[in-house]
């Protein structure tokens, strides 16, 4: 049935489609509606449990603990809450708990500009917690994609045995579109981990060997553990090399944008080629290299001061130009003028 659905609702419904049975969260704009949906849904479906936690720290810990206890679980927050969740995110990688964290980005740092949209938490998904870890992150740009990618994020979590991240922005969370969610096909990967109460395992955030014995003074064990984690994540991420590429014949300029910026600049597709990464992390190195090769100018349009642009530069070993849309300003005319300015600068 076609109906008007918001991005937040699509995310929640996508999680339910993927088999989620636990949600923990704390009210924060712009994802409070997901918490509200969870409360309403659990009233009608007692097998779905939800917790309105005392803070995001507890919400994130509860999400990971629920995963260890055997439920497909998820949590949703925005930038400031996501900062509080970083501790649990790191823990989730070490105890191998598949679950999904939704981060609908708003202008930061700190309280920032509630609730103006931004895309400035990309580094936070990768480097917010202590140590090395390799989360898989997706970023939709429409309500239908919110639904599909939430389900895919759950699948990637089961395959990588770790928390995965679904990015969104305040625009997308509150974007209403007419979609038919029931008719949207998704694949569901079943639960991959045995729940608690099945033996004598230790789920610890301390580095441990295969038996779960804590080993805190052996670099070899740590190396083996980290490479295995990286390898598992790479294999899971390889299954989802998601992107959208709109080539424009004769264009020498490639615009790279994702999430809401890709929607804003979509009307420029008659002038420029546009590349939209959907899997934000790990960075689509192979695809970016292939696509960018034939362009003279590459411009990354994003809602942060070059967070994704720096990843692109690393991936393709080339300088790119940047159009940072800061403070919630995503006006097409302004973006267009910035692009013109970038191009003028190169012809001088």
């Amino acid at each position, binding site marked *: 049935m076609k109906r008007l659905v918001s991005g937040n609702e699509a995310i929640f419904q996508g999680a339910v489609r993927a088999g989620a*049975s*636990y949600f*923990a969260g704390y009210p924060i704009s712009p994802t409070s509606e997901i918490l509200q949906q969870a409360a309403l849904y659990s009233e009608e479906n007692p097998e779905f*449990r939800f*917790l309105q*936690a*005392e*803070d995001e*720290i*507890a919400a994130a*810990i*509860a999400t*990971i*603990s*629920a995963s*260890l*206890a*055997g*439920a497909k679980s998820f949590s949703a927050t925005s930038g400031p809450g996501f900062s509080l969740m970083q*501790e*649990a995110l*790191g*823990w989730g990688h070490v*105890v191998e708990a598949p679950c999904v964290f939704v981060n609908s980005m708003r202008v930061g740092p700190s309280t920032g500009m509630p609730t103006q949209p931004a895309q400035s938490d990309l580094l936070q998904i990768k480097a917010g917690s202590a140590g090395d870890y390799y989360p898989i992150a997706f970023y939709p740009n429409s309500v239908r994609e919110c639904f599909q990618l939430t389900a895919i994020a759950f699948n990637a979590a089961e395959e990588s045995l770790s928390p995965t991240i679904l990015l969104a922005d305040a625009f997308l969370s509150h974007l209403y579109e007419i979609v038919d969610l029931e008719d949207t096909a998704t694949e569901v990967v079943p639960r991959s981990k045995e*729940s*608690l*109460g*099945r*033996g*004598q*395992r*230790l*789920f*610890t*955030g*301390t580095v441990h060997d295969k038996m*779960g*014995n*804590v080993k805190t003074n052996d670099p070899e064990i740590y190396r083996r553990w980290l490479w295995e984690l990286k390898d598992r994540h790479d294999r899971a991420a390889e299954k989802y090399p998601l992107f959208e590429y709109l080539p424009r014949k004769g264009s020498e300029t490639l615009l790279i944008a994702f999430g809401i910026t890709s929607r804003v600049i979509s009307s420029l597709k008659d002038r420029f080629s546009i590349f939209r990464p959907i899997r934000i992390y790990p960075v689509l190195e192979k695809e970016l290299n292939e696509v960018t090769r034939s362009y003279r100018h590459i411009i990354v349009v994003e809602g942060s001061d070059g967070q994704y642009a720096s990843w692109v530069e690393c991936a393709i070993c080339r300088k790119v130009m940047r159009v940072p849309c800061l403070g919630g300003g995503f006006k097409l005319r302004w973006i267009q003028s910035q692009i013109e300015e970038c191009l003028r600068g190169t012809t001088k």
Partner: protein
Amino acid sequence: MDRSYKDLLKLRRFPHTWCPGCGIGAVLKNVAMAVKELGWSDKNTVAVSGIGCSGRMSGYMNLDAVHTPHGRVLTSAETIKTIRPDLNVIVLSGDGDLTSIGGNHLLHTSRRNPDITVFCNDNEIYGLTGGQAGPTTPRGTKTITSPRGEPYSPLRLGHLLTQQAPYFYARTTVYHLNHFKKCIHEALVWKGFSFVDIVSDCIELNGRRLGFKTAHQMFKWFDERFHIVEGERDHLGENELGIARAVEEEVVPPAEKVEEKPEIPMASLKPFTLEELHRFDGTGGKPIYIAYKGKVYDLSSSPLFQGEKRMRCHIAGKDLTKDIDVAPHGEDLVFKFPAVGRLV
């Protein structure tokens, strides 16, 4: 002596990490004994612990165990119980983990009252990191971060956790063994959130600085400081060992106030025409009348109309039936006033 409790311990990992003389060993052993006595096994029991010396306890239990980040043990235990109500969830942690960094979670998890049992190894110090003062360190105690003596009063867990029924709070020490065993057993069988505050010793990083030579001297000190109180208690005093518990207070929903006004038959009311009504607009000491759905009400007692011909857009002496559509309140506000007539 029955040594079957050893099935519950990962003896292959022994010797354990704790210092000689530490009270944690006693906590681990007695919890294992009580769990065994109740017939619980690795199929239906999960141990959850936090960070610190006492956080290592779960790793020595032959159970599925979860070792959480610092302070998050209660949230984790509560969630596990939510997802798997069939599991017995026991929390083995320390005072720093539960009351300092996990203080917020202690407040809120105890409020939500999940059926979990918390064993708090309360050694009044941060042992693993070298002996810093914590929220349970008694006032005046010299530690490496309070060289002139701890300036603040300790957190009174007994008061904090018994402020709202239902609750189960037991205080015991590792020295008062029989009392200690009894508290553990009672807490495990309690339905709801139960908290056992086990005063324990840290001889290496606290006791020696306080002037104790051996762990045994510290135990004797516990004997001097604390005394056991028998019987059912609501609260425990400063140096009392015992169990304070209360079952859920019965929640009586506030009775809905229904004020029944006798319905006055229309015919018996005094008839008013609109012109007559118009005269009662409050001017010259006259009462304030308005009409609503065919009846005339006396609004003279309304504090909002007092001395005024109008209240916002409502004009006295008029038929205000249509005003209710745009008003931010319902018609019950009109019915509060006495009906004095009918509109003809």
